[in-house]
């Protein structure tokens, strides 16, 4: 790449991963320092903040896709959290805010995708696989049982009198060997 800020154009902000953990740990070290100061009263915003976090917990950050919107430090996530705060202050319901996000970014932003024609496979696919696996198991066990029964049957009938004598002689011999060994 041509310069140092290469990941930015896709990531729109901070890179995901180790750097972020480092930053988080560093920031955590400052928490105790920050607590020494007077708390800023935020009673009015507390309710808004709580709802914002609850909503954004349900949403995927488009930049760091395995993070929720509430936990992401990506710049777009900050923008979207600000947007959610604004919508809450405008008196929008949670459902309306969810609709706002889905209409822009699609069902993909929701961690709990809705049940509809395009998501049937997503919801029922695992159960389909399970049913298939159980069916395969049943078929296998049945054929195995049949095979064992068949082979038991056939071995009984196919042993000729000559073979039977040989087998009995062998058994007797091994019994004798055993009793000799014990002595």
């Amino acid at each position, binding site marked *: *790449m*041509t*310069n140092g*800020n*290469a990941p*930015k*154009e*896709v*990531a*729109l*902000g*901070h890179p995901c991963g180790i750097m972020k953990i480092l930053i988080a740990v560093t920031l955590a070290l400052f928490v105790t320092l920050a607590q020494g100061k007077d708390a800023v009263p935020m009673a009015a915003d507390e309710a808004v903040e709580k709802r914002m976090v609850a909503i954004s917990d349900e949403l995927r950050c*488009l*930049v760091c*896709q395995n993070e929720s919107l509430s936990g992401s430090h990506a*710049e*777009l996530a900050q*923008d*979207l959290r600000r*947007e959610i705060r604004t919508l809450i202050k405008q008196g929008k319901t949670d459902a309306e805010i969810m609709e706002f996000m*889905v*209409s*822009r*970014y*699609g*069902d*993909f932003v929701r961690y709990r995708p809705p049940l509809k024609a395009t998501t049937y496979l997503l919801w029922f696919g695992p159960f389909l696989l399970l049913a298939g696996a159980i069916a395969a198991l049943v078929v296998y066990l049945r054929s195995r049982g049949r095979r064992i029964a068949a082979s038991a049957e056939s071995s009984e009938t196919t042993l000729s009198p000559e073979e039977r004598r040989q087998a009995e002689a062998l058994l007797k011999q091994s019994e004798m060997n055993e009793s000799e060994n014990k002595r």
Partner: protein
Amino acid sequence: MKRFLIPVALFAMLVGFLAVGLRLDPREVPSPLVGKPAPQFELPRLASPDQKFAPLDMKGKVWLLNVWASWCVSCRAEHPLLVALAKQTTLPIIGLSYKEVRGDGEIDAGKIASGDELQLAQKRANAWLAARGDPYTLTALDLDGRVGIDYGVYGVPETYLIDKAGVIRYKHIGPVTREALDEKILPLVKELEK
């Protein structure tokens, strides 16, 4: 014989799934906006911020909306293609300058007064276009990225193809490539211009 067919079939299935799965890009989120009217906005133009641009101005035309920023490295990669496209065709390309100042991680946006932001964005965007060529019919300035949110922008560059009625017909995520242009965008433009 049958005993070998089963593992071979399972392996073929696995290869099939991987062949499809590994080609999918999880970054490419299908946009729900395709097939919907392009969200309306009114933003200052880069050349003359007192004048506004709105998608309504483009009614009756097939056009491209290209989201870019001077801090975006991929935009640099796709830019020559847009410049060539502007020369070859009459397809209007409208630029949407996305968070020109705030999006740049090297600038502390909090330290910039709101009046200065517009000027700084203008300066940076103009310098970038002067150096690399300006394929845009005009560029609109989305300083805070609010219009970007309405368009579902989550990475720059992104490009939208909008038809005569103002409906989004195609969205390209990431830098526009020659293949995307030849195989998807231009054939669609031809069809829409009929």
